[in-house]
């Protein structure tokens, strides 16, 4: 660890210099000093930390730990090391004083006698190995270990790690007679060659702790060792100026009420490096971007967080927000969030933008030319609300939303069977056609019983054959929680461990199947799934039979199918995950990103950008009895949804708080249908009835170069992968040069748009307007009209060629390809 150590020291010096040189607040600005913890509890011989914060008169707090002067009142009991770090010498009631900017604060230090318990592997050794990175997936926790030494990933199996160190390799990793000669220490200090380099040096606390443990009999777990219960990080939440620095402290809380300062043993990670960075030692540097971030501290499978708010340099006066229209609670909550961050919303979008955006987002189709024209001409002040209601009642609604869920649920037909997969597709479409309440929709999936050739969702169980596979899928889809990591080891940045994973898996342990299983080559058979009590799920390390228990929920004891209890727990209005997860998913469709994003990754280190808003949306959905259309109506009616994509000087850099609308490329199916609608030439898909839309294709195997180019998900790919909405070279080549688009433009059937316009009595101006309405839901500007009409009069141009070229140009422009 030597190079890092030096770097940290260097940074430390630099930071002190910087603060002393420029950032220290003037004395008269400091209102008070705060010490955290206010009272230090520590054992003799151990290290502890205190944070000194200067509370300023302008409402900001600033970290003064490194710049404050410390006076030790009881030098026989304790001494200061660097910054706010102190070391206890012997038991007693000590105290120290911090001085800063003419203010002082006294801090009592309660020093308990040094522990008589021998050091234990679980309490004292594992945290050191974790901090040093020994059990990282790329080092000794690789499947086969590294150089013969194998630890479990993030120590998910402490006993196995203990045996590996103490008992394996003929015991040569530890040498109790001369602990300093232990291989474990010789390698870690680079006294012997070590591919992983020096992890700590011989003067470090880590080294001393390992020596002490080896010398004192290498206890695995001390007899009265209290369980580790929670982690807290100081400061828990704070507002910062840009460029500010902050030291963090991490406290571990044990079942016996004791608190241990584990700052030196914790790992740290920032969720947004633009807003704040953090060192391995827990030193935070705030960046130049305003917004919110969290720093997550990890220690022995637990996580704690410190929340940061970095407002813009100057907040806007309250009066500036006073005139903003509030359509519903979404706007209220968004504005109050903007005020905190100094953001100001973009202007109202135009009617044309609204209609096109709402239509693409709600039904996945462009508004027709006539519809756009009528909407623009409508003088009813409530026309946007009315358009929302029309869209929600539109027949395309079901296909569009079913398709979104199919992305997530649809198995590979090669694996699970064509008929079974097709039935799921039909079930999804029917569910959205009926506007089935979301809780019922999920309940039907989770509680699936029956035959894959009769009941659509059964194919999900056919495809995900193991309880573990269903656990991963359902928790990610319906709870927004990625438990996948915890299948094999503790989630690195969350509290979930294997116990949580297999308790969840136990809900599916009693599902049995009979019938023809997955079989080469096309899995054409069918299978029936049913509840069969008695089968169990075991913890892979301890072998313990798991009782079903949802994450953060209560264990379930039942003689009937526990999946019913799981569904009850999920859909209970107090469930902390379920309504939030789906509200966030729906939100992301309309705004291009979730309030939590990615939408299925809720965790402490990935907080919502606007928690109050997400809570309110979830409550609304519960109040509306999980009627998704009602939630969509609320979202669509909000002013927030109707903001322009054009940024203003206060929200240019906002890419997550929704103070402006974000441009999004049209998804593959939507784009294919939009091209078909704009050209008036439908696609013909092999194996589907004439007139079918791309949105109705039920498998990626239905051929479409357009959909492939624009990244439709391929269900032969096991992810389930997020859709790739990025532009690509293949897309631009396809739109500019493809035979399929060219043949649509050149089509001479009566319904083709070009043909209709060519043969119509419309003037050039009227033709241009018609094309703009069809593609962009708006009429052309005078300038656009001029350029377009001129295209009719270029030498060699015919009415037909001009219309073809104009339509080609409009379809190849950003205004077509993006939802804006």
């Amino acid at each position, binding site marked *: 660890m030597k190079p890092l150590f030096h770097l940290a020291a260097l940074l430390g010096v630099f930071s002190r210099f910087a603060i002393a040189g420029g950032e220290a607040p003037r004395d008269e600005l400091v209102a008070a000093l705060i010490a955290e913890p206010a009272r230090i509890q520590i054992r003799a011989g151990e290290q502890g930390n205190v944070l000194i914060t200067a509370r300023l008169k302008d409402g900001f707090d600033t970290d003064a730990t490194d710049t404050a002067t410390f006076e030790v009142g009881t030098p026989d009991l304790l001494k200061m090391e660097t910054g706010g770090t102190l070391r206890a010498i012997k038991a007693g009631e000590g105290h120290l004083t911090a001085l800063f900017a003419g203010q002082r604060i006294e801090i009592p230090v309660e020093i308990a006698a040094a522990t008589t318990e021998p050091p234990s592997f679980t309490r004292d050794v594992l945290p050191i190995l974790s901090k040093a990175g020994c059990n*990282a997936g790329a080092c000794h926790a690789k499947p086969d270990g590294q150089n013969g030494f194998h630890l479990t990933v993030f120590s998910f199996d402490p006993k196995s790690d203990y045996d590996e160190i103490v008992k394996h390799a003929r015991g040569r990793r530890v040498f109790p007679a001369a602990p300093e000669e232990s291989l474990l220490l010789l390698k870690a200090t680079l006294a012997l060659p070590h591919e992983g380099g020096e992890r700590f040096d011989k003067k470090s606390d880590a080294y001393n702790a390992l020596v002490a443990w080896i010398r004192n009999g290498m206890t695995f777990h001390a007899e009265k060792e209290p369980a580790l219960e929670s982690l807290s990080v100081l400061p828990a939440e704070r507002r910062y100026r840009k460029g500010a620095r902050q030291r963090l402290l991490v406290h571990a809380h044990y079942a016996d009420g004791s608190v241990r300062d584990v700052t030196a043993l914790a790992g740290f990670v920032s969720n947004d490096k633009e807003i704040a960075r953090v060192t391995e030692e827990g030193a935070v540097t705030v960046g130049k971007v305003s917004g919110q971030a969290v720093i997550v501290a990890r220690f022995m499978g637990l996580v704690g967080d410190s929340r940061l708010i970095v407002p813009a340099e100057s907040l806007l006066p309250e009066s500036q927000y006073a005139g903003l229209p509030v359509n519903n609670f979404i706007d209220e909550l968004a504005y109050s969030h903007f005020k905190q961050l100094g953001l100001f919303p973009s202007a109202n979008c135009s009617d044309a933008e609204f209609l096109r955006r709402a239509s693409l987002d709600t039904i996945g189709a462009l508004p027709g030319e006539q519809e756009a024209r009528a909407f623009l001409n409508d003088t009813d002040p409530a026309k946007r609300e009315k358009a929302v209601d029309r869209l929600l009642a539109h027949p395309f609604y079901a296909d569009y939303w079913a398709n979104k869920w199919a992305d997530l649920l649809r198995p590979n037909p090669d694996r699970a069977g064509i008929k079974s997969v097709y039935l799921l597709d039909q079930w999804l479409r029917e569910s959205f056609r009926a506007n089935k309440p979301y809780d019922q929709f999920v309940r039907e999936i989770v509680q699936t019983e029956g035959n894959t050739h009769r009941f659509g969702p059964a194919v999900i169980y056919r495809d995900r054959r193991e309880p573990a596979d269903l656990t991963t899928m359902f928790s990610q889809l319906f709870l927004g929680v990625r438990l996948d990591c915890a299948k094999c080891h503790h989630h690195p940045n969350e509290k979930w461990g294997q116990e949580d994973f297999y308790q969840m898996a136990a809900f599916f342990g009693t599902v049995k199947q009979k019938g023809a299983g997955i079989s080469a080559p096309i899995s054409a058979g069918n299978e029936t799934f049913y509840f069969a009590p008695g089968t169990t799920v075991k913890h892979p390390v301890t072998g313990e039979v798991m009782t079903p228990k949802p994450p953060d929920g209560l264990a379930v004891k039942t003689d009937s199918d526990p999946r019913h209890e799981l569904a009850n727990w999920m859909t209970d209005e107090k469930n902390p995950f379920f309504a939030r997860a789906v509200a966030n998913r729906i939100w992301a469709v309309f705004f291009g990103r979730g309030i939590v*994003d990615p939408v299925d990754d809720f965790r402490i280190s990935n907080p919502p950008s606007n928690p109050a808003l997400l809570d309110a949306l979830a409550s609304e959905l519960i109040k509306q009895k999980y009627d998704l259309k009602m939630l969509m109506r609320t979202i669509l009616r909000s002013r927030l949804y109707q903001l322009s994509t054009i940024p203003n000087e206060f929200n*240019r850099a906002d890419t997550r708080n929704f103070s402006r609308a974000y441009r999004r490329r049209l998804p593959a199916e939507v784009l294919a249908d939009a091209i078909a609608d704009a050209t008036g030439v439908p696609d013909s898909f092999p194996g589907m009835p004439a007139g079918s839309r791309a949105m109705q294709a039920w498998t990626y195997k239905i051929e479409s170069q357009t959909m492939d180019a624009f990244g439709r998900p391929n269900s*032969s790919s096991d992810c389930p992968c997020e859709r790739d909405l990025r532009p690509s070279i*293949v897309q631009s*080549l396809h739109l500019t040069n493809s035979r399929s688009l060219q043949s649509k433009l050149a089509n001479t059937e009566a319904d083709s748009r070009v043909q209709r316009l060519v043969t119509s009595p419309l003037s050039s101006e009227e033709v241009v307007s018609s094309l703009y309405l069809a593609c962009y839901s708006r009429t052309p500007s005078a300038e656009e009209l001029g350029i377009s009409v001129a295209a009719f009069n270029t030498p060699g141009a015919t009415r037909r060629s001009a219309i073809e*070229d104009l339509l080609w140009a409009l379809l190849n422009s950003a205004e077509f390809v993006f939802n804006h």
Partner: protein
Amino acid sequence: MSLHRNCNGIARRDFIQLGLGGALGMGLCDLFRLRALAGETGAIRPAAKNVNCIMIWLDGGPSHYESFDPKPDAPAEIRGTFKSIPTSVPGVHFSEPVPELAKAFDKFTVIRSICHKDPNHGGGNHYMMTGSPTPVPVGCGAFVTFHPSFGSMVSYDRGVRGGLPAYMAMPSNTRSGGPNFLGGQNAPFIIDGAPNSKNFQVNDVVLPREISEEHARSRRDLRAALDRMERFNDKLVEDPSVVFDQFYQQGFDLVSSAKAQAAFDINREDEKVRERYGRNDFGQRLLMARRLVEVGVSWVTINYGGWDDHRNLFETYKGDRLKQLDRGLSALLTDLDERGLLANTLVVALGEFGRTPKINKDAGRDHWPHAMSVLMAGAGIPGGQIVGATDAKGYNAAENVYRPEDFAASLYTKMGIDPRQSLHTTTGRPVPLVNDGRLIKELFV
């Protein structure tokens, strides 16, 4: 070898770093290892980023007996009806159906000792096309992807050059040739159609036939005048239409590039050369592949299926499928060599497995992953070399045995890609690109 790329490339977004990357996924340990690796492999791939690859994918699994690994001394029920024939290298024999390749053996290496354990087409395809076995058993008819294919990884590594998609496939994608979590940008660009037919035209990268260059230019001008949505070049805004414009510009550059356009037009090829590759669609695809790598396409897969000969293998192998392969592939190797392109063009031909030693009752052979032959040439791979061997009857790879992981590691190393790097899935889980692959050292002499 770029350390920066490894540390940075894995972090598609902040959340992924946070999810797993950060300090845990990529600790100091990796940094030390990477540094060591840079020293170790740096020496053996000087100009690898200029190496392009043509992969001939023989879906179904060709017989090793009737191609590169004849067993003339085995009993008749194993040996089959073909004779073995001498090659241009004394002492090495191929089987009768590949006479042209036998003559051109001085240009390539045959590995006779790659094997695995997946006897299903779906699983075997996946293993040999990605270097990674499927995590669940996969049926024979299946098209599956759990891991990025070689071509997609190369595309991810190199990106678009001169408007050319880095990864192309003809006439269709292979079963496991997709990008998986690397995303749609790294899916293959498919060139369908029949290049041996008179009016063959590559799709999308050339103008539609009825649009003249002048017409295309006037359309482009019209578009430029009408594409008026405001762009925000300020990076903070994260305006996706700015990226969209970059791809359009690249696309227009490609269409205006006389060199690239000439490459796509196979009709410009000398008739004698076309004849040499064989006037059939497969032969012309090989020729097309040469033209594509010549202008800088990084990876071209030719999906040439139908090798699942459970019946009538011996009659079939006398027919067109093998003749076209023998003629086309030997022509490709010779042509690349004559043009000085072999040094930076990797050529690989293989299927998902070999075939059973015992001839079945239908005069066919069944699936057999325990032995197979893989042809590799170019990019510094020696000619006239046999790597490894199967046992006397061709049952098992027996000498110098290599796994698909080793094949993958070698392939990536030839392409200038560090096979020991970690990728991150969409959920942030670190996945080794190749799981503990060893280099096939005979390819790096």
